[in-house]
């Protein structure tokens, strides 16, 4: 054999560490999926009969969310390198080859759905498979680069975890489970459009038709305000279902008022600072709202 000393720099993927592969799974998004799925589980009627299986179901849901993220990063690796927000991800950095991200995503998808079928039942597993498929195929492959309504329709994928959680506990997905879905679905546009106002140049560079890039900042701010009104008006009605009670109704009105105020200030001030505040508060809003559900259930105050 002939040996060759190489003067070239070592390819980054040869020194990739486990944390680079873990970063493919977007741990923060995984934790949000776990949190909303837990809310769906706890909000389901009756006490959780088997917490061991519920925890295993949550792990399966988290793995499914991680799988979607890995597949999304594989598909978007070309545009991720053009955006400052995503340029440090493992694939643009050369740490993980795209094919490995794809393989990891596919394997994790299959294992997560299988594990959820065992721990939470077939309906929950079906919803998890639909969530992964919708996020990767419908959102990432078809909507994201084609229409400014990408995150409106694609938001369905992010809104499904509470339904998956509900189905894992009860084996059903009645209207009240979809009420939880509706809250996250309506929350997604103001949240992401606030971010896209801040990262407009990034999206421009990547050629992604986010609403501010296509219709202008004013139109985006108007749409944020309209969706905020719909969200804030719709959310307290969850208290009409047995899954939520008066603490949720009060929290949704108080948090909703602030959400609406932030959206109004963004519309009025038309500056990046207001967009940043809107974005940050939208995260707190969803977290706080879904935290009330388990708290009132454990306190026995739900409908």
């Amino acid at each position, binding site marked *: 054999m002939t040996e060759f000393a190489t003067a070239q720099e070592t390819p980054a993927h*040869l020194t990739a*560490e486990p944390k680079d592969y873990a970063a493919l799974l977007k741990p923060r998004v995984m934790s949000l999926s776990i949190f909303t799925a837990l809310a769906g589980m706890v909000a389901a009627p009756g006490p959780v009969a*088997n917490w061991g*299986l519920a925890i295993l179901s949550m792990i399966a849901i988290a793995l499914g969310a991680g799988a979607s993220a890995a597949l999304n990063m594989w598909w978007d690796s070309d545009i991720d390198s053009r955006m400052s927000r995503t340029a440090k991800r493992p694939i643009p950095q050369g740490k993980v080859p795209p094919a490995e991200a794809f393989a990891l995503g596919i394997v994790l998808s299959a294992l997560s759905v299988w*594990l959820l079928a*065992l*721990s939470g039942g077939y309906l929950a597993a079906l919803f998890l498979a639909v969530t992964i498929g919708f996020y990767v195929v419908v959102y990432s492959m078809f909507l994201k680069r084609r229409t400014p309504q990408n995150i409106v329709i694609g938001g369905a994928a992010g809104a499904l975890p509470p339904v998956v959680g509900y189905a894992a506990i009860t084996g059903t997905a009645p209207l009240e489970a979809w009420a939880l879905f509706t809250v996250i679905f309506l929350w997604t546009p103001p949240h992401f459009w606030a971010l896209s106002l801040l990262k407009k140049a990034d999206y421009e560079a990547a050629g992604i038709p986010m609403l501010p890039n296509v219709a202008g900042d004013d139109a985006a701010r108007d749409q944020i305000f309209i969706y905020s009104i719909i969200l804030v008006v719709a959310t307290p009605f969850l208290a009409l279902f047995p899954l939520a009670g008066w603490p949720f109704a009060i929290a949704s009105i108080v948090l909703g008022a602030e959400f609406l105020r932030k959206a109004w200030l963004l519309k009025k001030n038309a500056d990046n600072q207001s967009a940043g505040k809107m974005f940050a508060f939208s995260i707190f809003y969803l977290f706080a709202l879904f935290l009330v559900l388990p708290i009132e259930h454990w306190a026995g105050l739900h409908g």
Partner: protein
Amino acid sequence: MADDNNIDPRTAMGGAEGLPTGEMHHQSDEELKAQRKRNVAIALAVLAFALLVYATTFLRLAENLKTGTVE
């Protein structure tokens, strides 16, 4: 006659495309360390998943025994 000194090192073994070229890559210490870490992570992940499936099976069986679905 071909001069041996002019042989392209990439085809030293006479390798055409897709065939061995004889080229070797010696891993640096940093690469070996990273590879070892990846191997350990894969082993732990496989072990963790096996434990998850074991726990799920155990809990499902216990629940089904409790509810009388299986005897």
